[in-house]
């Protein structure tokens, strides 16, 4: 058991890994700097520095928002749904996936706030007793967004922290002096008594139940931003399902993108077994097939409804205006995915990593296609226009990657990245089985 603890927390003392961490943190900090400059200039000059205007009032800021929120969903799926289904293979990866969720929510939530134009008035979205005699527009999906993402953030944080408490106590018991006192405060007086474990389990399962609903609800609400709007390609009932599937799809691939290098880098092969990676790959396959069904449904609805603008959109995707982008998305998200039917590919980490990168790029492009294409080609041809992202759009996106990387690096440096408690439990239970 002490080997588990040492293996998970001990890497910090390895000078080579420490150096690598510092280099990685340096690069991530540069990204954060780019983000600060981009946001600073946005505040000085206004949202016009982004390529948005009329008719494309939502640029890559919104497509990146949708993408980032989706990234978070894999964490919630693994930590909540798989917990309730008693899938114990989740244990080595759930802490990590939950951290990914939290950071992705931060990266995502940033975009709509910046997009407000006057971000200092974000609280107008919150129903508070104001002096205006008006409530926020409850029929607006932007208000729903605020509630959905707010709830998601709070529940994810609570879930993550609750799971962390026993590990924080372990850190406390192994540290000395001032550090021990900091860990002790964070561990909230955890002693590991039977009563505490009993309450902990109850709370953890309760939160898992809450979070399960969120896996489905959050991205459904995000999809309403589009689905309740009258634009060709947006006003569709398939959107909630399509968005949730896409969210899990990009989230699972992002998990693989992070997990595979970290596993190699920190020598976590004993914890994250090939079996775990393969099961993740299978989940990618499932989510990907659901997403592919979404693409199929879009084509089908266009054809079956026969509505002029729907047909025009399907044509534009298939042969016209946005065909290059559309077929890239299909090739990456549907074509590449088919390789995962092969067991050898699922077990080859290099292949899996490359596929995951390809699919995640494809998912970002898909969000871009959904947001930009419908706005460029609305119902009235007189209102058509083109969108080009500016350097500040790209700087904000690049910066959000920096922010994500920086937070994840801080996480693996200061927090046990694999749940030591759950690993010990597994050990005990497996011994029990063997006996």
């Amino acid at each position, binding site marked *: 058991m002490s080997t588990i603890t040492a293996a998970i927390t001990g890497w910090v003392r390895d000078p080579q890994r420490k150096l690598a961490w510092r280099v990685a943190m340096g690069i991530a900090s540069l990204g954060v700097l780019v983000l600060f400059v981009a946001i600073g200039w946005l505040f000085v000059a206004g949202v016009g520095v982004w390529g948005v205007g009329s008719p494309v009032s939502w640029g890559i800021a919104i497509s990146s928002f949708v993408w980032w929120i989706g990234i978070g969903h894999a964490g919630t799926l693994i930590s909540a749904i798989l917990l309730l289904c008693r899938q114990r293979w989740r244990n080595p990866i759930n802490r990590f996936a939950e951290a990914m969720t939290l950071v992705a929510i931060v990266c995502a939530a940033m975009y709509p706030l910046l997009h407000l134009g006057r971000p200092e008035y974000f609280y107008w979205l919150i129903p*508070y007793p104001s002096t205006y005699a008006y409530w926020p527009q409850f029929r607006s999906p932007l208000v729903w967004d605020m509630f959905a993402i707010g709830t998601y953030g709070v529940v994810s944080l609570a879930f993550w922290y609750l799971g962390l408490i026993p590990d924080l106590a372990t850190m406390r018991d192994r540290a000395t002096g001032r550090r021990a*006192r900091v860990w*002790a405060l964070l*561990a909230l*007086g955890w002693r590991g008594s039977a009563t505490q474990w009993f309450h902990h389990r109850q709370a953890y399962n309760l939160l898992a139940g809450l979070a399960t609903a969120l896996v489905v609800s959050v991205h459904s609400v995000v999809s309403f931003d589009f689905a309740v709007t009258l634009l060709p390609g947006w006003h569709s009932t398939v959107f909630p399902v399509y968005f949730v599937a896409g969210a899990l799809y990009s989230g699972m691939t992002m998990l693989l993108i992070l997990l595979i290098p970290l596993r190699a880098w920190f020598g976590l092969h004993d914890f994250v077994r090939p079996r775990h990676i393969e099961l993740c790959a299978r989940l990618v396959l499932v989510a990907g097939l659901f997403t592919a069904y979404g693409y199929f449904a879009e084509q089908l609805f266009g054809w079956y409804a026969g509505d002029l603008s729907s047909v025009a959109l399907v044509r534009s995707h298939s042969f016209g205006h946005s065909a290059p982008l559309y077929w890239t998305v299909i090739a990456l998200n549907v074509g590449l995915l088919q390789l995962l039917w092969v067991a050898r590919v699922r077990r080859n980490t290099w292949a899996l990593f490359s596929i995951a990168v390809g699919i995640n790029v494809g998912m970002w492009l898909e969000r871009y296609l959904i947001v930009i294409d419908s706005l460029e080609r609305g119902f009235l041809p007189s209102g058509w226009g083109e969108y080009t992202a500016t350097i500040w759009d790209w700087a904000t996106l690049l910066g959000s990657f920096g922010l994500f990387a920086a937070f994840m690096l801080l996480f693996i440096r200061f927090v046990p990245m694999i749940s030591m408690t759950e690993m010990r439990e597994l050990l005990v239970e497996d011994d029990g089985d063997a006996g």
Partner: protein
Amino acid sequence: MGSTFALAGGVAQLFPASVNFRVRASLWTLAIGAVVLSIVAVASSRSDWSTGQGRATAQPVQFSHAHHVGGVGIDCRYCHRSVDTEAFAGMPSTQTCMHCHSQLWTEAAMLAPVRQSWANGRPLRWRRVHDLPDFAYFDHGAHVQAEVACSTCHGEVERMALTVQAAPLTMRWCVDCHADLPARYGLPAQLSCSTCHR
């Protein structure tokens, strides 16, 4: 239960027993503080301190509505000439003051700025007492034509030695009346956003 944190260290005691109380007290302080802070914020946003209701604004000449309106009985429109026709009610020019004050109180110290303005041709800089934000469109003419009395918004001006802001001028104050137009003035309610935010 009483010594949760004290026992936390296992063998060695990391904290004295008093930490239990201090941690709990800090958490409660945070929670209660957040509630108190929100109550203060909500209450102060409605207070005169925030809205400026009842506040007098310093003017270049200490003009008394109590004397001119209450005492002498001059009509509002003598000085605020465009109040029933235009968005802006209009502020009196120096010439308007001098209609009377070229004959009356010609040596009064209080009126020195008026005579100075008359002599050098630079208008008096009256300061707005009821100052709406620039994003709210307000038309005096429309309100007067609809038979809204001046005093409905400006209060009993004829009793004000110093002109004070009579209404809170919050959006709620505007909207309360705009929603009640059928009952008060027999007019349809005016609640579209673009009635005021154009």
